[in-house]
């Protein structure tokens, strides 16, 4: 029995490793627990658009969007029957951005979090599978599980909230274009932000 479990585990990790995040290809599968202790897998959301937002509340570039309320607005806009917004924190224990589920419940309430779920990835496995390097870093996955966007949240790589208004939001554009059935024009951009604290 143990050998069987080991084999499955190895196979699972292997699939995780093989599926590198390439636009146009299926996005890497994952299973993570959220701040309420509930487990979610990517496959749970088949048939819906999935937005992945790499987050670290201490990073000035993440604060740019949360302190100004802009991230919460985006989350509200893009959650519903057909879109799911998941925030993933890959900060290792003891590093900036890491919070326990108890801390998170209070924090998410305080910032007015509007996403579908805040997932904890403290061993960094999912972050590394997606090659997430900065916070924020955004991924958009279509209802068939194919990655259609990866990269920056917008085109103004600064920590200043004043720059959000004039910036072109790549996530907005990707979801709008993908929903309309047209190819995403800016499908891959260089993300900006603090490094993920693995």
């Amino acid at each position, binding site marked *: 029995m143990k050998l069987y479990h080991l084999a499955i585990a190895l196979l699972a990790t292997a699939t995780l490793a093989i599926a590198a995040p390439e636009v146009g290809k299926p996005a890497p599968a994952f299973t993570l627990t959220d701040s309420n202790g509930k487990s979610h897998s990517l496959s749970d959301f088949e048939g819906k658009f999935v937005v992945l937002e790499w987050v670290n509340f201490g990073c*000035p570039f993440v604060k740019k969007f949360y302190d100004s309320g802009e991230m919460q607005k985006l989350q509200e806009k893009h959650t519903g029957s057909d879109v799911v917004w998941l925030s993933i924190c890959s900060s290792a224990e003891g590093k*900036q951005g890491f919070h326990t589920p108890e801390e998170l419940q209070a924090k998410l309430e305080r910032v007015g979090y509007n996403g579908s779920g805040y997932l904890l990835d403290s061993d*960094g496995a999912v972050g590394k599978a997606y090659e997430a*390097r900065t916070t924020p870093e955004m991924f958009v996955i279509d209802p068939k599980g194919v990655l259609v966007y990866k990269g920056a949240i917008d085109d103004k790589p600064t920590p200043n909230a004043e720059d959000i208004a004039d910036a072109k939001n790549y996530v907005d554009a990707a979801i709008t274009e993908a929903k309309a059935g047209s190819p995403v024009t800016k499908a*891959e951009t260089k993300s*900006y932000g*603090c*490094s*993920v604290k693995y």
Partner: protein
Amino acid sequence: MNKSWLAPLLIACFFGGVARPLAAQVLDGKTLVEAELVANTEGIVPGQTFYVGLRLRMAPGWHTYWQYSGDAGIPTTIAWELPEGFGAGPIEWPMPTAKLEPGDIEVYGYSGEVLLLVAIQPPPDLVVGSEVTIRGNASWLVCEAICIPGNAELSITLPVISTAPKSQNAEFDFWQRRVPSADPPPFSIQWEQSAKGLSGRVLSDATLNSVRFFPLPVENQPVGHPSVTEEGGESIIRVDAVAPLRGVVAAEVGGEERAWLVVADADDAMAASSQGFPPLWQALLYGFLGGIILNLMPCVLPVISLKVFGFIRQAGADPRRIFLHGAAFSGGIFLWFLGLGAVIVALKASGSEVTWAFQFQNPAFILTIAAIVFVFALNLCGVFEMTLPGKAVGTMSDLSGQEGYSGSFFQGVFATLLATPCTGPFLGTALGFAFSQPSAVVMAMFGSIALGMASPYLLLSARSEWMKFLPKPGAWMEKLKQFMAFPLFATLLWLLSILGGQKGIDGILWASAFFLCLGLSVWIYGAFCTPVSSVRTRAIAIVLALLIAVGGGWFFIGGGFANAASPSASTNTKSGIQWESFSQARLDELLAAGTPVFVDFTADWCITCKFNERTAINVPAVRALINEMGIVPIKADWTNSNPEITATLKRFGRVGVPFYVIYPAGRADDPITLPEILTESMVLDALKKAR
């Protein structure tokens, strides 16, 4: 005393946002970054470019970012507020260090301290004695385990003076040396593109230690983490990216950290710095052959059989002893040549290796070698003779009069010395080229020449019956000597062609005019300064020869040659882009007619501008597209302040160069602008949109 005004004043100063030269970024009572604006001059000379630097002093463990920050972080920016008529160039970034963070994250930046340099161009109409304040708003991101954005409103005030003091600013010199140079580097890289990315073999004559590559991708160009490995004595740079990729190669050369801008393009290898020198084995072969041919010179050939007979006489009939005499004689020849090689190596050691390897980029060096080659060729033609000083001949004669092997040894040295009038020209030329080669190659070359020269003695002393195969001396030797002048003239032609690439047709003409004077003065020396002419004749001849040579040099070289522009700078080369000078009137006229226009805002003191022009604009594909589409190329040269250009830049919200604007045909109100870092494909794509 009533001090009620003091507190409000102090508070006002604290909050008034008065720009200061120095500002500190503090977190929880600890200073993370101290930012200061400094200048490399005590005063501003109207119209003369100077440098301002943003000095960032970071707390230990904290770092700020480079021009390309890497996987995370953002580069430092400076927004300038310049007085009327002033312009600023882009930040000149010293070479960074790479930092690897957990999760395979690599960033490029600075720790400790860094000075970010910016060229400032003042207008020519400043009033001497007035003061000028330059303001800059610097923004950066400083990180340790966490990141904190910082910014500072800085200013620097300088007086306007009439002439700049010639003092060196050590701090600016240090950091300027660490800014990547846009000059051709002392290496070439052969790039290859594969599915795994780019790989480049670094080929160099100089010794490069600790080679590093820092990428400079254009917006959204994906690039992996570069790695450099040593394979078979060569450095191989690997980076997961698609050509073309700009970047910086840093290395320790000649004991100094230097860096160069490069473009990784798999299509064409970068121009080699060694101007096509033959590989080592070829050089050695030529040296050996050259040494053999030297034996045919009038001063050498008659001596060979005499010397060998001398060995036979001394050694009696014992073949072994005959050969040993021959070997000793050859030893003397080797001493002479290897000694010459050692002198060159010692001279080279006095300058850094990089300097010597660079010499073939330097027109003055090429000119000097060409002059020497020309004079030597004239010597072979018989225009003048070279004579040896009497004292040297006397000493050598005594030494070689000794019997035994040591006598033969010194005879070898003496014979080679005596052969100098004939062999001098070739040795002189070889000496000149030797300067640009590494020390090991120099010694090897001279060794092979020595071997070539010594080979008849070795062969004939081993088998004295072969002497019957020796050519008989005769008048033909003088003709051979004259004939040998022609390979030297061919070398001169080759050197002139290199000079032409550097200084254009004008450069070749001025240099040739100088050579004409040199030839005349050398003829005067040769014709009138002979051992049989009177002292008075000799004195007049020498004075006249010197006058003509120096006069020709001063007039043709100092005047004409020095001012000859390099071909790429001239606006009228047939194969180059036919740039028009910028003028607002002309631009308006073209736009009104609906013509597509490409404006290149550049300046001589802007390294990035020059690099962009060389690698992304003055390239065949762009030239062809410009011609085909009928785009009018305009160069807005801002080297000397130009109010029209300044006004145009301002309209686009810019204070400096580089800057590129493309006005599409018939859509002048919708111009396309290009960013600071250009690649050929970016320019091509943008130009295509101008239809």
